[in-house]
């Protein structure tokens, strides 16, 4: 189960399968979505922790 999840994560990070007929726009959309997801995670995680910390002090 854990190894399957890890393989899925590595596959997602590695990128779409390269095939001769691969559509460049799909690949571009994939990478842009991955970058946006990474930026959202890096932004939302500290924000949520900050929100929790300030709420619990009230």
């Amino acid at each position: 189960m854990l190894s399957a999840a890890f393989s899925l994560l590595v596959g997602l990070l590695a990128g779409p399968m390269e095939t001769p007929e691969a559509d460049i726009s799909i690949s571009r959309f994939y990478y842009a979505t991955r970058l946006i997801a990474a930026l959202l995670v890096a932004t939302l995680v500290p924000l949520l922790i900050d929100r929790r910390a300030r709420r619990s002090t009230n």
Partner: protein
Amino acid sequence: MYIGHVAAALAAKRARASVGLVVLLVATYTPDWVDAGLCLAGVYNPDAVLSHSVPAIALFALVGFAAYALGTRDWTGGILVGGVIVSHMLLDWITGHKPTWPGGQMIGLGLYGHPVADFIVEGVLIVIGALLYGRTLPRRHRAWMDVSIMIGALLALQLGIDVARMLLKTLPKC
């Protein structure tokens, strides 16, 4: 640099607590958000001249300063927001190879090629930033827990990206 940029936002929060953390986090990742937009638009340049070069960063910092200062009338806060945007370029020079000028030299220590060293450097920045941020929280019993959660979560994210870099030959941005 990935999560190390959050450290700049956290440290800036300590410098001026009235500036919202969300503003500082958006500021610290501004060049990467621009990269995401360029990638979607199909005009992404792997050299990142349009997003990470000195003139690009100077423009973003000026826009960030103006937007925040004019929107809030807090000029000092605006300078801080601009400074956080500039910090992105300086921190990226530690971990990557980034452009100085269109057609100019690429500079940087390139720690991305050494994930363990990258994790240590970014980890130290994360700890320093989180400790400074902790001073902005109201004093209460077990306040160290909030800072510990922040450090732990950010280090876990950084570890994830460094492990991915060790496992994968390339991790293209776009």
